[in-house]
């Protein structure tokens, strides 16, 4: 990279300008990555943290409304429990509710909750970082997401649900964010969830079948074993989605992630085009100089390698600057109300993609070098 390195210094104004554009794109990609991760966390972190391999929903359920419309019976749970490869099968309830949390000191916090109804002694019951686990003997006790605790809801607070007036008591808090559909998760004993889901308040009668219903069958595969969804669905009359597939049932999840992925994809394409356009212009501006080098015996391969190495230096440096700026800005956003979370893997992948596609753009532009006729170094006769 004898020539390329010296050109970087000589034409530092040009390369700084292009580097600034790449850095800005890298910054935007990091912010989008953080927003994407934040939205995923807000949408499905409650599901991600469940020790579940798959969910079996009612047979007629569509993916995008699975958690809101599906109803399964305990018989179906039992059918799944008998399937080979299934380590655990338990009923799982999911319902979105509104209410308000009131503390002993008189403070009231309005809350939107995703109630996850789980049998208190099952593998689904969460381990709180503070307070007590769920207990079927305390049907009003709930364990809440760490993010809800951050909003001021504490152990001992009473949560009163709107419309039906059910009173729940916070008995434990979780360490991490557990959210579903941008709403904080509260784990509740399944029997209580069944009452809330049926719209039965304190003292209201509950139809008999409701006591043996849930939203889905939560399945955990045995270590090293794989579930056989087709066989299980045939036996239980269900439709099974893997845990990842079930994310699509979270409200807005698919639309949000696909929109952000599309924007991110466009940014990669724009970056490759910008780099390609810059190096095309750069090559055109230098065509006489390149013709001289080719007349001196310089091969097109040597010049293309030099140009691509030059692009690599600019891309890596500019991307590093953009990513660092993105991480700095992201640290500020992460503390705000915006759903924003930076994770190393997506940021590293985005940066690598940006560099790789930029190099492809530069390489495509550098192909012009092979077409430069060394004869033009003499003024171009033929």
């Amino acid at each position, binding site marked *: 990279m004898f*020539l390329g390195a010296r050109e970087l210094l000589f034409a530092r104004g040009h390369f700084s300008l292009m580097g600034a554009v790449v850095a800005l794109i890298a910054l935007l990609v990091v912010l989008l990555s953080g927003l994407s991760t934040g939205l995923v966390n807000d949408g499905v972190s409650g599901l991600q943290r469940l020790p579940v391999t798959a969910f079996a929903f009612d047979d007629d359920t569509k993916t995008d409304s699975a958690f809101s419309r599906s109803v399964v019976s305990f018989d179906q749970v039992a059918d799944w429990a008998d399937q080979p490869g299934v380590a655990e099968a338990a009923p799982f309830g999911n319902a979105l509710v509104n209410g308000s949390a009131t503390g002993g000191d008189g403070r009231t916090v309005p809350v939107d909750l995703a109630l996850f109804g789980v049998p208190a002694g099952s593998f689904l019951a969460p381990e709180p970082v503070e307070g007590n686990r769920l207990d079927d003997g305390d049907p009003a006790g709930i364990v809440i997401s760490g993010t809800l605790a951050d909003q001021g809801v504490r152990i001992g607070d009473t949560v009163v649900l709107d419309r039906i007036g059910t009173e729940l008591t916070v008995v434990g808090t979780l360490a991490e964010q557990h959210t579903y559909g941008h709403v904080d998760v509260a784990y509740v004993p399944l029997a209580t969830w069944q009452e809330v889901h049926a719209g039965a308040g304190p003292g209201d009668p509950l139809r008999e079948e409701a006591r043996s219903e849930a939203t889905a069958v939560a399945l955990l595969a045995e270590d090293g074993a794989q579930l056989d969804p087709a066989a299980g669905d045939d036996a239980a009359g269900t439709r099974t989605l893997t845990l990842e597939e079930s994310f699509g049932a979270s409200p807005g999840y698919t639309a949000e992630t696909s929109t952000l992925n599309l924007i991110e994809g466009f940014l990669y394409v724009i970056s490759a085009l910008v780099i390609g356009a810059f190096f095309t212009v750069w090559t055109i501006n230098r065509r006489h100089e390149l013709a*001289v080098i080719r007349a001196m015996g310089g091969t097109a391969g040597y010049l293309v390698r030099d140009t691509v190495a030059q692009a690599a230096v600019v891309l890596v440096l500019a991307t590093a600057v953009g990513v660092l700026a993105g991480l700095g800005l992201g640290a500020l956003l992460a503390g705000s109300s915006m759903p924003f979370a930076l994770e190393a893997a997506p940021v590293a992948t985005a940066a690598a993609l940006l560099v790789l596609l930029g190099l492809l753009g530069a390489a495509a532009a550098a192909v012009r070098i092979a077409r430069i006729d060394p004869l033009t170094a*003499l003024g171009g*006769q033929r």
Partner: protein
Amino acid sequence: MTRGSAALELAHVTLRLGDGDAQVTALDDVTLDVTPGELVAVLGPSGSGKSSLLAVAGGLTRPDEGSVRVGGVDLATASRRELARYRREQVGFVFQSGNLIPALTAVDQLRFALRIAGRRADAAHTPELLLERVGMSARAGHRPHQLSGGERQRVGIARALVTRPSVLLVDEPTAALDRARSREIVALLAQETHEFGVATVMVTHDHDVIGACDRVLEMVDGKLGQVHAHS
């Protein structure tokens, strides 16, 4: 100066440019031998075929007829890869106005030429020593835009010689220079041609500079004509 057999031999070379009705004969049955240490000037007006002669002799294009032999190899039948190798290893070009690379300092112009040729300078012909020979050691760290036209040509001559070529092809070296500078540059070319034992062909339309040349040929409509002997 000793002269042996020809380092560059063009025999009955014809080069046609363009197609159909627009076709012109740039070189018409040209024969030319240049021996090591000989500076041959080719005079002629614009469009007479002078640059085509350099293009053929430098392996930048292949003739339609005839042969171009350097070191026993016929360039007329060589592949593009072989031509590029020939240019790297056997030829030094001096272009109009030097045609130096803008990003490189004077000394880096020479280092880059060595790098392209895949060679290391021998102790007696390092880039620094060559710049000193052409009177440019004080300007070794300057880039082309910081040099005058004559200085650029001096660096261009040093760059062409640093790879120790057997053939030196010089394209209108005085096109952008005043009379005094032009004579200096051609005198320098003559001196280095004799010192390095290189076969040099210089095309020019400048009659004032031919006094330093060993032979002067004239090109008219693609034909090499009248020969003047000076040495």
